[in-house]
């Protein structure tokens, strides 16, 4: 419904990304299918962590569902605080990851914007992002009483050792056996080749989309990336992702040609580190844009292509172990700093905004060291925002506003 009192500003209209409509359709279709009774779809449902290998599930015709993606939706629709509080009343400490808290609570009350996620037939937990997911999936495995598979990807602090390699490779085989057991059918290795190709292709395209922001002025910001990310997370390994990102990429290229930037009068180019602050993306994006500051890239959305270099498109299954073990969050803090330094150069950044996210310890602890390294090596200003991605209670708006203003001053 259009608001008759609202006049359409052609300037604003021009800057809107048109593909968004299609993206919303895809996500709606995806959740509708996932929530359709299983007797109708005939498909099983797996809950899987955002960094988990989804491709074998696609091969098995299982619908993957991502509690973390749902956590983001809960956060964006500002339903996070309520659900977090509900989890606390169940005995979960308020210091735990707010995705986990929101999901654990949502499961018991069918909460959140789509009235809860469909019940899982199995749980797939890959700890390449954190140890939290291990505990969180244990909670859900007890609650739903369904089989849990853990893909244990030891942290590569300084190396991907042969010991780690052998261990994870063995587990990839166990993963497939697990799926064969739960689904009651054989794994189709030929289909795996196809799905693997699509997965890598999707990641490559996503990286290309993100790289369009190297252009000055940038056709999009990381806030747009936060939105468009949902596909590479949830539907990785399908044609849908490839088609959509091709469309999005074309639109970005066209914007560059037409000189359409997301931030009017782009003056500063900034990097973002850590997860979005889901309930305040709009506020933050407006805040920065008002100063002519464009957040051109971030470590979070690019995380889904962070191990592309280890993945073999033609032999996906064999490279799966390394690809999934060496994602950037599963490496040492110094390597994460290097990643930011490279991004700062690549995207020509004038500053770095660090979201110190109390929910996510593996992502946030170490940020102060990264901050120092970036300041020393790049001589660019940095800003730390202490917040949480979903739980609004600790977001100190006026304090953050003041700090952003002071930071922008430093960019001058």
């Amino acid at each position, binding site marked *: 419904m259009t608001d008759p009192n609202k006049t359409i500003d052609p300037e604003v209209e021009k800057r809107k990304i048109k593909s968004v409509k299609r993206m919303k359709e895809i996500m709606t279709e995806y959740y509708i299918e996932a929530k359709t009774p299983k007797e109708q779809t005939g498909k099983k449902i797996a809950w899987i962590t955002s960094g988990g290998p989804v491709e074998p599930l696609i091969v098995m015709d299982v619908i993957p569902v991502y509690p973390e993606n749902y956590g983001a939706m809960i956060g964006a629709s500002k339903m996070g605080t309520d659900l977090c509080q509900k989890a606390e009343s*169940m*005995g*979960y*400490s308020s*210091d*735990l*990851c707010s995705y*986990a808290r929101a999901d654990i609570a949502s499961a018991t009350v069918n909460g959140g914007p789509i009235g809860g996620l469909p019940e899982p037939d199995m749980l797939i937990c890959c*700890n390449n992002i*954190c*140890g*939290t997911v*291990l*505990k*969180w999936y*244990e*909670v859900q*495995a*007890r609650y739903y009483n369904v089989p*849990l598979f*853990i893909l*244990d990807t*030891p*942290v590569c*602090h*300084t190396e991907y*050792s042969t*010991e*780690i390699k*052998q*261990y994870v490779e*063995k*587990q990839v085989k*166990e993963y497939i056996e697990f799926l064969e057991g739960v689904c009651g059918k054989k794994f189709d290795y030929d289909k795996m080749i196809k799905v693997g190709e699509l997965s890598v292709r999707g990641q490559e395209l996503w990286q290309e989309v993100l790289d369009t922001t190297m252009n000055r002025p940038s056709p999009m910001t990381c806030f747009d990336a936060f939105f468009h990310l949902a596909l590479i997370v949830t539907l990785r390994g399908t044609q849908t992702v490839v088609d959509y990102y091709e469309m999005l990429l074309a639109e970005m290229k066209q914007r560059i040609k037409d000189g359409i930037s997301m931030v009017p009068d782009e003056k500063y180019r900034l990097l973002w580190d850590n997860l979005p602050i889901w309930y305040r993306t709009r506020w933050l994006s407006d805040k920065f844009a008002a100063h002519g500051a464009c957040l051109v890239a971030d470590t979070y959305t690019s995380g889904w292509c962070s191990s592309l270099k280890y993945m073999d498109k033609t032999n996906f299954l064999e490279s799966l172990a390394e690809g999934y073990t060496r994602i950037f969050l599963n490496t*040492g*803090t*110094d390597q994460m700093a290097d990643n930011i330094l490279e991004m700062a150069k690549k995207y020509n950044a004038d500053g770095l905004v660090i979201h*110190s996210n*109390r929910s996510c*310890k*593996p992502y*946030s*602890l*170490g*940020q*102060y*060291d990264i901050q120092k390294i970036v300041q020393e090596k790049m001589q660019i200003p940095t800003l730390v925002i*202490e917040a949480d991605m979903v739980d609004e209670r600790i977001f100190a708006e006026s304090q953050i506003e003041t700090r952003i203003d002071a930071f922008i001053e430093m960019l001058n």
Partner: protein
Amino acid sequence: MASFDLFYEIVNNPGQYAMHWKKETGNKVIGYFCSYAPEEIITAAGALPYRILAGSGSISKADAHLQAYSCSLVRGALEDALNGRLDFLDGTVFPHTCDSIQRLSDIWRMNAGFKFHTDVMVPAKLDTVSAGEYMTSILDKFKKELEKLTGIEITEEKLKDAINIYNIIKKHLSRLYAIRRDAPGVIKSSDIHVVFKAAMVMDRRRLLKELERLATELGEKNHASDPAKKRIVLSGGLCSMPDIYRTIEGSGGAVVWDDFCTGSRYFEGEINTEGEPLKSIADRYMERVVCPAKHKGLFSRGEYLVNAVKKNRADGVIFFLLKFCDPHAFDYPYMKAMLEKENIPSVLLEIEDQLPSEGQINTRCEAFMEML
């Protein structure tokens, strides 16, 4: 009368003890975190395994590296390292456990300036064959790293010797727990606590002798129990090992068991002395009840706790959660629910940076004892 003086002396200044030891023996001191560090291998290399606990001082330097939402063990340990209070260490071993320790390892490696730094990447699940094989392989890797550091070949014989020492040490430690359980009051929990704390930093051969001495002093006679006391099992995580015992025992409770990694989990599980030593060490980790940062089935810790209450005829459970400790906080609700099903009362005490004011714990403990 049994004397605990030596243990108190060491615990009051463990750093000084380690420094003396180093001077006397000329051997290396290796700092470690957590009960998943293979101490046996360090001992076999002729080095002293030194468990790093939270620092005693206030935090200043660590604040430049760690957000306020990291647990006090992680912050306190880093503070000590940055302040030079751990300068006697030749290096540090970080077994993989929780997310906070994982990042502490990186920050430590980048800032603390020790020559030797290694991550023993313990698997997160301890209930599959491949995890067991992997565990053995990383122990072997760790052994080789230590050989390089010390220049000493860690032979099978040395490993078996070390394993033997630890097996006997752990038998003695478990006996202390048994005496306390059977006759609370005969040994004060604070004293046992100090023995455990010292056991993780002192020369293990010397420790063995001291424990033997203690055993003789405590004697074999059957001690009488004080039935007026409420029998309590402690649960949760106190990686930093504060002394909570005085308060509990002061308010009419008698600690009869715990599931701490610095308590029962430290001595439980004997290492097989017959087989291949590294595999035997790995096997113990696989068989022992897990730390909440590890996975072994869905109910193992809850079952252990319920059994501990039943076996030790306890009246209730006190949970201790260290603020910002994720693994323990995730397990608490289901463990509490399992206790409730069995009609076992429990209370939760959250520990911030340091112990909350003594009065506060006292009041809660007393209220709990009364309820029992």
